[in-house]
């Protein structure tokens, strides 16, 4: 994990819903931190004491759609298994042609740790319906188009441009 006292993710504003952005030195870290940002929309993450671990694998046509697919897989898992999550480890984010000469297929694999939703009932907040393609982007550094007054300072290394980010709006 990153050596930082600040959470390596943030929210950004949207009229009705919530923008989430994850940072990391690698795409794997950025995906994991973006997932944490999603979890914080839904519950108080430190209150979830992990009891189960579930493996995930998702695919996308590019790294952005892969991020949306990853988040949506977590949301689906939440409802199907009735779980709240404390965190996840993204083992790999990679791309390769799905067949010789075919376009690249992006793939993410990892594990997510969580506990039954009812065990953190008192610490639940808002249900996220889906991750969306709205404001979906990825890159290096800190995008400033949504800079907000009162935004929590990010780790210096993030601002220096050494970090990757992935972001999208989630529908609540």
């Amino acid at each position, binding site marked *: 994990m990153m050596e930082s006292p600040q959470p390596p993710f943030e929210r950004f*504003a949207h009229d009705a819903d919530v923008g989430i952005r994850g940072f990391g030195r690698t795409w794997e870290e950025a995906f994991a931190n973006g997932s944490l940002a999603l979890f914080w929309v839904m519950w108080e993450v430190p209150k979830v004491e992990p009891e189960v671990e579930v493996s995930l694998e998702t695919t996308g046509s590019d790294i952005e759609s892969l991020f949306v697919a990853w988040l949506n897989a977590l949301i689906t898992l939440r409802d199907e298994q009735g779980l709240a999550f404390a965190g996840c480890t993204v083992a790999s984010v990679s791309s390769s042609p799905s067949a010789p000469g075919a376009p690249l297929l992006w793939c993410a694999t990892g594990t997510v740790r969580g506990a039954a*939703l009812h065990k953190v009932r008192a610490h639940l907040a808002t249900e996220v319906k889906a991750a969306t393609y709205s404001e979906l982007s990825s890159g290096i550094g800190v995008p400033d188009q949504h800079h907000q007054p009162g935004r929590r300072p990010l780790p210096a290394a993030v601002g220096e441009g050494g970090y990757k980010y992935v972001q999208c709006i989630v529908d609540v």
Partner: protein
Amino acid sequence: MRVPGRLFATEALVRAMDNKVFEQVRNVATLPGIVSASLAMPDAHWGYGFPIGGVAAFDEDGIVCMGGVGYDISCGVRLVRANIPRGEVSPKVLGRLADDLFTTIPAGLGSEGAIKVTEGRLEELLDQGARFVVEQGYGRSEDLPFIEELGSVPGADPSKVSAHAKRRQRSQLGTLGSGNHYLEVQQVDAIHDSTTARVLGLRAGELVISIHCGSRGLGHQIATDYQHTMAAATSSYGFTLPDRELVGAPLKSAEGLAYLGAMRAAINYALANRQVLTDLLRQSFERVLPEAELEVVYDVSHNTCKEEEHVVDGHRQRLWVHRKGATRALGPGWPHHPSAYESIGQPVFIGGSMGTSSYVLAGTSEGMRRSFGSACHGAGRALSRTAAKQRFRGDQVVRELAAQGILVRSHSVRGVAEEAPGAYKDVGEVVAAVEAAGLSTTVARLLPVISVKG
């Protein structure tokens, strides 16, 4: 742009709108097969592909666009009248009712409904909607005529709903959800159109109940699944789109037909969900306020794509009308209207916030010409959720509303802060703009008494 963009609003509302709204209205106007204009209602705000409050109709050579329906398929409002004046209910009984509703109505993230539907029965539910759950004993057959499409939209295809979507809903039938969804006991505060109010059985001072929710995880998953399918279809049909959220497929294509079949299944799920919640509502009133007689006024959705006939440039045309955060508000004589409502336009319910008024409207013939029979659906947010959470404290909001005589019951203090009345625009101005544009007429104003939130 293939057609013009048209925004219905006052100058003040337009000035308050995010520039994204104008961009999204423009983008929708470029879609294949769009007819007449890309429309936005007075409560329009930044959505997904379409603005929330966006309306667009497509001819048979056009596309079905899932951004025009949204992630919460068939989210809508059901209004139930209690046929009892608020003045006859003591504050003590209202407090007991609030507590009973809070324990009876499953609300919030992770809440579970009492009904588990087996896979085989789920197919029937997705095919038959509210009619199916009434046959299972949840509610009364007299409720059905007062639900859009008589409680069951035809053309649902449960086979086009994924296994993930079916599993996701396994314990969610009869649940409210969270976010801006609510069950609210309200008082009819003012009657604006006494003739229509009389037809709807609304009397000043009496209690009514609004239920605002949708198709739960099943609908959300259908949207997510078809976002992926439609993205592939969009490129295979050679569409160039200005926004990835505007993915779609020709109405007559395999992908388009599959989405329509799945979307209609989600509409039926939403209608069944609100029907089960109505049954729970009746149980709660039966325990606490048995003098009340709960009757469905109407149930109308605001996230749908529906096949309808409209007159465009003097010609009657079959159109697929997308309404994303816009309420269907057809004029008098609309299809499947209850016989008692023959003389009035389709009822429209506009939610405010838990501290402000809601409104009952009715569709007009003018609205049929101007907006394909559509109106707004809510106040629209003035503050983002993040900003609202920074500005308001949930427990303080609950106390302040209690001082005004409004009882809030919620599982999430944070959720209350995000949904604080101060986070919303003035719904009265939105409703006045809808009326000024001739899209609907105002029938009655409702004031909150009890609000159950997720």
